[in-house]
C-alpha cells in the first residue's frame, strides 16, 4: 500500500529525513516512534503530499505522491484520512457537520443518507449522542473520537494518525487505541500511527519503526521491540532518563559555568 524509498528531506540545508525506506502492506497497522523533532510528522506529511522530498519518493497505491499535480493529489487524498494531534475539528461547525463535511464536499449523497452515515460513524466511536454539540463542548478524548469519525467518514484506504494519544486520560487513551485497531480492521484500511506512547501503541500495532535524527534506527514487531537490546530502543521503551538520548542538553563545561577553579 505504501512504499517509501530513499526518502530525503531538508529544511534549507538542515536535513530532517535521511534515506528512509519503508514498506507498509495493505491492511496493516504500523507505528512510527521517536523523540520530538526526529522527523516522524515530517514523514507523515510526505505521505500525505504536503511536502516534497529532496530525494527519493513515497508511493501510495502505486502512485508517486510528489509527482501528482494538485488535482491528482486531491483525488489521492480522498482515499486518505488523517487524524491530527488535537483533532483539528472545525470549531464553527457542530459535531454532526464536522463528520458530514467530507460527504457534502465530495459526494452528491442526499441529506437523508448523509444523516444516517454520520450517525453510523458517530455510533462507531461511541458518540452518536453528541451530534448536536459544538467542539467546544467536548472533552479532549471526545474531540479525538469525533475527529476519528470524521477521518473515516469516506472509508479511506489509508489512515494516518499524528500523535493520537497526546494529552488523553488513561480511559480515553485505551478507547482511542482500541478504535484505531478496530476501524483499521473493519475498513480493511492501512494505518500509520505516529506516536510517543510506547505501551499503548505496542498493544495495537503490527509493526514498529523507531526514528532518531531523521533515520530509522530500529524496526520490528511489538514483541521484537519489547525484547530489543538496542540502546536507543531500550531507553525509549523503558523511559530511561539517560542513554543514547542524553539527559543534559549539550553546553559548556559545568565548572566553567559556575566559575569554579579546578
Amino acid at each position: 500500500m505504501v512504499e517509501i524509498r530513499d526518502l530525503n528531506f531538508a529544511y534549507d540545508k538542515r536535513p530532517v529525513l535521511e534515506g528512509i525506506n519503508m514498506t507498509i502492506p495493505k491492511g496493516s497497522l504500523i507505528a512510527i516512534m521517536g523523540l520530538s523533532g526526529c522527523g516522524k510528522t515530517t514523514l507523515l506529511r510526505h505521505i500525505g503530499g504536503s511536502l516534497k522530498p529532496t530525494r527519493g519518493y513515497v508511493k501510495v497505491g502505486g502512485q508517486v505522491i510528489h509527482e501528482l499535480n494538485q488535482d491528482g493529489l486531491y483525488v489521492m487524498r480522498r482515499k486518505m484520512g488523517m487524524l491530527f494531534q488535537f483533532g483539528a475539528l472545525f470549531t464553527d461547525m457542530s459535531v454532526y457537520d464536522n463528520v458530514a463535511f467530507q460527504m457534502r464536499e465530495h459526494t452528491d449523497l442526499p441529506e437523508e443518507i448523509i444523516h444516517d452515515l454520520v450517525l453510523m460513524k458517530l455510533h462507531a466511536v461511541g458518540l452518536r449522542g453528541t451530534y448536536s454539540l459544538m467542539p467546544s463542548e467536548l472533552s479532549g478524548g471526545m474531540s479525538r473520537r469525533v475527529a476519528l469519525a470524521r477521518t473515516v467518514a469516506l472509508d479511506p484506504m489509508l489512515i494516518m494518525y499524528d500523535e493520537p494519544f497526546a494529552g488523553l486520560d488513561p480511559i480515553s487513551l485505551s478507547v482511542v487505541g482500541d478504535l484505531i485497531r478496530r476501524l483499521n480492521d473493519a475498513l480493511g484500511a492501512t494505518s500509520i500511527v505516529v506516536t510517543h506512547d510506547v505501551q499503548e501503541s505496542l498493544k495495537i500495532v503490527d509493526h514498529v519503526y523507531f526514528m532518531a535524527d531523521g533515520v530509522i534506527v530500529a524496526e520490528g514487531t511489538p514483541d521484537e521491540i519489547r525484547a530489543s537490546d538496542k540502546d536507543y530502543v531500550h531507553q525509549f521503551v523503558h523511559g530511561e532518563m539517560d542513554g543514547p538520548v542524553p539527559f543534559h542538553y549539550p553546553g559548556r563545561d559545568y565548572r566553567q559555568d559556575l566559575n569554579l577553579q579546578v
Partner: protein
Amino acid sequence: MPATNTIRIIGHRAINAVWRIGLASRFFFLTLLYSGSSFRRFRLIIRELFSTGVLSLIIIIVAGLFVGMVLGLQGYETLKRYGSESALGSMVALSLVRELGPVVAALLFASRAGSAMTAEIGLMKATEQISAMEMMAVNPIARIVAPRFWAGVISMPLLAAMFSAAGIFGGYFVGVVQIGVDEGSFWSQMQAAVDFREDILNGVIKSFAFGTVVTVIALFEGYDAPPTAEGVSGATTRTVVTSSLAILMLDFVLTAIMFRGN
C-alpha cells in the same frame, strides 16, 4: 561594523516586505481564481456576510451618528461666520458621502471585521483546521478564504452607505432639531449639492476599493500567521495597522483621481 549591519537589516526588511507583497498578490490572485465555487454555494458568502457585515452594523451606525452630529456642530459654527448656515445639509452630506463615510467606515471595518477575520483564520491555522481541510482534499482558499473575501467586498459599500445615512441623520438632529437650522434649506441644499455620479458613485467606488484592500490584508495576514499565540496576535495587529494606512493612502490616490479639477 554597525553601518554594514544597519544596511544589512534594512536590506533584509526591504526584501522581506517585497516578498510579502508578492505572496499577498499571489494569494489575492488565487482567491479570485477559486471564487467560482463560492458563488455556486452562495450560502457560504451569506453566512460570512452576517459575521462581517451584520455584526459590524451597530458600531458603524453609532459611529456614523456621532460623526454626523459633530459635523453638524462644527459645520454650523463655521458656516455661521459666513452667514451660510442653510448650506449645513450639503456640507454634512458631501463630507460624509465623499470622504468620511467610506474612510471611517473602512477604518472601523478593519478594526472590527478585519481583525476578527485574521484572528479566526490564524487560529484555524494554529489548530490545524486548515491542514485538516487540505488533507480532506478541500481547497481552503476556495472554502474558507473566498467566501470571506466576497462578503467583505460586498458588505463594505453597504456599511459605508449606512454610516453616511446615520451621519446625515446625526447632522440633521444637531443642525435642525437642536440648533434650529431651517429644515427645508437643510434638505434642499443637500439635494442640490450632492451629485449621484460625482459624489455617491465615487464614494461607493472608494468603499469598494477599501473593502477589497482591507479584506485581502486581513485574510492574508491570518493565512500567513505563524501558528502560535504570538503569531496570531501579531498578525491581528498588522491587519489593523496595515489596513488603516492602506485605506488612508488609497483614499488620497482615489480622491486625487476622482475629484481632480472639480
